[in-house]
């Protein structure tokens, strides 16, 4: 009987010469990606896991069994209802943004399974596609159970099918990075930057957080997904090393572009969860500490190993870690009806903790919470719209996210003119990407342009209901209805009572 190492490459690395068609026709550059190189240049492509299909199926079956066992034990509605309300919001945020993005990643992997330039790459991408299908199905299954008790969970499936502003931004990112990218850009953008740089480690941090808050279902799901990510993310460095030999500036550009774009979305989803939606008593570290230790250190080491430079906007990024997710969260709180999950106002103890974790800029953010708290003190409990924005907000022409970059004293948005049309960009890195690929991005209609063109209502309530697809049952509220014991208004009422 053949030993494993004697047959393995026959099933995962099997390339051949074409006799009646040119290699360029089998792998057109438009679909396979740049730089186009003959297979001779790719034939040494390899990755460390070297899994066979039989091994893959056996291992995935065991992982699924394990997830379903945990679901049977602690993944039911009654278990979910015992979790803190703010953590439930974090689940809704992840539940909506994760599964169908993973489904888009199935498509990106399948494109690589056909047009990747080496058979071992194509084999690994096939497993990657199967992984991502699993990452779609598991959260859809787990969160679907919860729709009966909480209609906001309907957004787990609904989110990407809406024109909600966060969905528009997430689609703008994922359509490009997952659905339409050629296999080389997909490998660098998704496998190397997004997965190796962010989600692989982010999932480790999220699982640890879920453990501490007692959400063992989410912990198990994320841990199981992470083990798949760790494997198929290895496509990234293997492709990147070969691209670096032939077009290092292109590799540098893609790594800088996609790190910035990934950062913005991750800092919202994970930043909200770590610094606001995890109960204070359960927080072990801040989002900034997590990013510094788990993401930046590892990512920079990965860049250096391959010969890439740190992104040119590194100093901007470091400042953003102190501010961006705080500015977005405070802004989103005051437009919470436009989201499908509930928000909380950080109370005095939370603000004290945030000040200790973000000493350099917290004063500026704290002033905003002071004003929001004052507005609640002047309003009746439950009077959500008294503490809510009514004016349309601006969106970046590249990332499609709200204009929350820079500092409260100096927002970093810039207006760029392109063929007689003005576009606003949230930051210099977004403006830099936009200018580099204006033909790709300039025609996209952000929500403000849709409003001005009459395609979406300008009235925020109408926009929320008719365009973002939210209803009274599903739109975001203050999780406490503004009934915070530390508010002066509540103390006054208690004295009167």
């Amino acid at each position, binding site marked *: 009987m053949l030993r494993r190492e004697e047959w393995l490459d026959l099933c995962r690395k099997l390339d051949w010469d074409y006799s009646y068609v040119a290699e360029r026709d089998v792998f057109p550059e438009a679909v396979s990606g740049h730089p186009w190189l003959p297979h001779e240049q790719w034939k040494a492509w390899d990755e460390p896991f070297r899994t066979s299909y039989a091994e893959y199926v056996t291992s995935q079956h065991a992982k699924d069994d394990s997830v379903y066992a945990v679901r049977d034990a602690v993944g039911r509605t009654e278990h979910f209802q015992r979790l803190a309300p703010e953590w439930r919001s974090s689940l809704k945020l992840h539940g909506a943004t994760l599964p169908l993005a993973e489904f888009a990643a199935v498509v990106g992997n399948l494109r690589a399974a056909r047009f990747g330039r080496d058979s071992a790459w194509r084999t690994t991408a096939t497993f990657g596609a199967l992984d991502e299908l699993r990452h779609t199905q598991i959260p859809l299954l787990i969160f679907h159970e919860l729709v009966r008790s909480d209609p906001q969970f309907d957004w787990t499936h609904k989110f990407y099918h809406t024109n909600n502003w966060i969905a528009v931004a997430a689609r703008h990112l994922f359509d490009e990075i997952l659905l339409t990218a050629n296999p080389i850009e997909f490998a660098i953008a998704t496998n190397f930057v997004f997965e190796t740089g962010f989600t692989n480690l982010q999932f480790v941090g999220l699982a640890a957080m879920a453990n501490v808050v007692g959400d063992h279902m989410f912990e198990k799901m994320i841990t199981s997904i992470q083990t798949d990510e760790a494997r198929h993310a290895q496509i990234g460095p293997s492709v990147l090393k070969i691209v670096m030999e032939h077009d290092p500036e292109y590799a540098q550009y893609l790594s800088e572009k996609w790190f910035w774009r990934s950062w913005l979305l991750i800092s919202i989803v994970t930043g909200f969860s770590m610094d606001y939606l995890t109960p204070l008593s359960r927080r072990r570290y801040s989002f900034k500490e997590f990013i510094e230790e788990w993401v930046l250190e590892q990512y920079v080491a990965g860049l250096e190993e391959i010969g890439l430079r740190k992104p040119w906007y590194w100093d901007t990024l470091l400042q953003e870690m102190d501010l961006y997710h705080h500015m977005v969260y405070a802004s989103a709180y005051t437009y919470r009806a436009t989201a499908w999950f509930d928000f909380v106002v950080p109370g005095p103890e939370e603000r004290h903790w945030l000040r200790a974790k973000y000493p350099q800029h917290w004063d500026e953010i704290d002033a905003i919470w002071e004003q929001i708290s004052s507005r609640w003190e002047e309003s009746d409990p439950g009077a959500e719209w008294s503490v809510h*924005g009514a004016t349309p907000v*601006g969106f970046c022409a590249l990332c499609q996210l709200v204009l929350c970059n820079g500092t409260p004293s100096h927002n970093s948005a810039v207006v760029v003119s392109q063929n007689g049309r003005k576009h606003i960009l949230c930051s210099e890195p977004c403006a830099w990407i936009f200018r580099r690929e204006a033909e790709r991005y300039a025609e996209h209609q952000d929500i403000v342009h849709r409003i001005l063109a009459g395609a979406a209502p300008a009235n925020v309530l109408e926009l929320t209901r008719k365009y973002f697809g939210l209803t009274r049952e599903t739109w975001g509220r203050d999780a406490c209805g503004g009934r915070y014991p530390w508010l002066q208004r509540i103390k006054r009422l208690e004295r009167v009572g």
Partner: protein
Amino acid sequence: MSASADSSGNLVPIYGFLSGDSLGLVVLVHENDAVEIVGRRLQQAANVRVASARHFEVHHGGRVLDLRRTVAEAGIAPLDRVDVVRKDE
């Protein structure tokens, strides 16, 4: 004498940034509105996050604008960036 809103003339949507605020807003003004109206309208729109100030400056294209001039006279065009800087801080 404070300026009043003039609803004649074309509507001008602008990107407004109030000092101390966490995000940029889209504010609609008329081209015949005084620049002071732009400042007041943006402060009103952002009041849920930033307390309004009696005294403020309006900045556009690197210049501090005369609050008594109209939007059109000040050269504010649709989708320009306009900054309102509170002076009561």
